[in-house]
């Protein structure tokens, strides 16, 4: 009587009992992802606002003060102080007291009134590129608009010759959280699940109970599936909790189908549990299992499109990102939650995740040796 999943029920029931017997372990499975998602969700914010700005106003006219006011009204800049020399201006940036320095030369108002080219010097701390870029764009934009308004007045036209009217789809207010939270969901689910199964067989090996399992008439797929199922239930609960946090703590809309969302989570979690189990079949002790897990998880932080867009990466990194399950899950989350995409729209992503899930599980079964040493 050799059934393919022999011993599955025994392992399943035992694992469930073991998992729920140890509330601290359960807590440590749930706690980090929740902290992670909240911390990342709140802390990771690309919307650069109220950058500390120092001003060197050598002009001291109505025009120059109006210009500074307009600068501040963009909400990008916040004047934190006035200085009296160019040296002080650059010192303020060097010392980190300000990101931006604005210098208005003495002839500013005179040039504006005379219709000549009036210059404003803007020093930007380029060591933080995101911030620098935003400061640059805002300052340039402001100058451009002011120039256009002046030119328009002079030419007698009432309207801009060309006007772009952008409409931001799916994330109208351009909140960073909408971009980051789906990504964090992918990462938060990852660590807990991979580690959970990675440690499960290693624990049996360390305690010596693995020997008893190997001596028993137990099929490899029975063992593997029995090990995965309890954590699959826990991980799905965790995924539900994470959706809940995304929706109600960060106010991220879920425009797509819940079934698509859960199918994606199911395939993703199953894949990760398979990865963990695969680690577990070869690691000799739990230190090793943890190291391998973290080493495998780390690249996904950079190459999953969580922060950096995959499209701009060199080809080789695009290949790497194509091999990372999180890449597909994060893309699916953004598509389903923000853009309301359906399973049909993203069927290839689902197929890839399903393939990965099946692939890793089969690999576990194939690679697990029912022998020691």
């Amino acid at each position: 009587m050799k059934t393919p999943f022999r011993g599955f029920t025994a392992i399943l029931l035992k694992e469930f009992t073991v998992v729920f017997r140890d509330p601290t372990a359960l807590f440590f499975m749930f706690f980090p992802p929740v902290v992670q998602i909240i911390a990342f969700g709140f802390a990771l914010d690309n919307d650069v606002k109220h950058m500390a700005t120092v001003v060197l106003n050598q002009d001291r006219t109505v025009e120059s003060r109006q210009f500074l006011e307009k600068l501040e009204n963009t909400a990008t800049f916040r004047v934190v102080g006035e200085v009296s020399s160019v040296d002080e201006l650059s010192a303020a940036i060097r010392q980190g007291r300000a990101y931006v320095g604005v210098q208005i030369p003495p002839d500013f108002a005179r040039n504006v009134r005379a219709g000549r080219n009036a210059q404003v010097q803007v020093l930007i701390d380029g060591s933080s590129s995101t911030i620098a870029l935003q400061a640059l764009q805002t300052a340039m934009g402001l100058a451009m608009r002011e120039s256009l308004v002046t030119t328009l007045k002079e030419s007698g036209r009432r309207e801009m010759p060309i006007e772009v009217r952008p409409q931001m789809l799916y994330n109208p207010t351009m909140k960073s959280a909408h971009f980051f939270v789906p990504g964090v969901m992918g990462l938060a689910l990852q660590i807990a699940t991979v580690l959970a199964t990675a440690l499960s067989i290693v624990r049996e090996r360390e305690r010596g109970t693995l020997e008893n399992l190997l001596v028993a008439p137990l099929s490899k797929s029975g063992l593997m599936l029995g090990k995965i199922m309890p954590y699959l239930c826990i991980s799905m609960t965790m995924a539900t909790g994470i959706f809940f946090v995304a929706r109600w703590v960060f106010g991220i809309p879920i425009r797509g189908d819940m079934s698509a969302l859960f199918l994606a989570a199911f395939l993703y979690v199953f894949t990760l549990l398979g990865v963990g189990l695969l680690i577990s079949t070869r690691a000799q002790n739990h230190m090793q299992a943890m190291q391998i897990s973290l080493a495998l998880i780390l690249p996904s932080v950079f190459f999953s499109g969580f922060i950096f867009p995959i499209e701009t990466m060199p080809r080789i990194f695009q290949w790497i990102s194509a091999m990372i399950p999180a890449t597909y899950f994060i893309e699916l989350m953004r598509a389903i939650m923000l853009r309301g995409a359906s399973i049909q729209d993203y069927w290839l992503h689902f197929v890839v995740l399903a393939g990965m899930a099946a692939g890793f599980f089969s690999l576990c079964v194939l690679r697990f040796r029912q022998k020691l040493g």
Partner: protein
Amino acid sequence: MADAIIQVENLTKRFGYFTAVDHVSFSVGKGSIFGFLGPNGSGKSTVIRMLCGILAPSDGQARIAGFDVARQSDQLKGIIGYMSQKFSLYDELTVTENLLFYGRLYGFRGAALRQRMDELIALAHLSPYLNRRAALLSGGWRQRLAMACALMHKPTVLFLDEPTAGIDPVARRELWDLLFEFSGQGMTLFVTTHYMDEAERCSHVGYIYMSKLIVCGVPDDLKTLPAVNPSGARRLDVTCDHVTVGLQAVRQMPGVRSATVFGQSMHLLVENGVSESALVNRLAEVGIQHPDIRPIAPSLEDVFVTLSAEQAENGGGK
């Protein structure tokens, strides 16, 4: 052996350059209690693991009830039981839950599972601790539970790897009583141990030393081996006061081949030329009066000590 249930031929296990088990051959008769002895790291557990089919032999072969341990481990699993070193159990599970797990693992369901568990609980007297977590059991109780789990499927051959390590003498005695009972019912037992008194209880013993099986057979036969009873010498037990002082004195006498303390007495191997009165006189010189001297047969310990010393000498000469 005509009714051998375990047959081992040239079984060898190498880990890299290290040979853990070196061409070991022996056989174990059905229903016997086979004591497998040897110092730590001599290869005892490695042999057991190969026999249980969880470690692939590098060379040689072994059969249990006709099944090749390397190739027919699936058939093997139904007939062997294995109690691993240190009684590995699931610490966070209770006694009942541990039994339930092994019961289900061996395919028991519903009423049959319940019934088999009840039998084992009665057999191992586990009823007072059913709801206690395995982590909180003392050594003796852990061992009983581990044994109950190993017996779940009524194996015909039971392997016990150091079943009495670290447990109290009462539990040790009770375990041996159980083993004799199983043996009487026809079960074959393969036991590793450090204890010489346990070795004396076995129907057959094997002694492995530096990866090689140096002797194997019935204890009484081993004690009559020529190597253990060299011609022209005899074994004496000398009971006296201040044994340690006496030991120093007699060791220096010509014709005394070996002398060891054994509780209140010392065991000597002396050449026939050395008379008992010569021993009495020597002891009197160091102030020991009226020693009680009588001839003795070699113990299993003597057998193993003599043979491993011989093996070490031969090994060194290679």
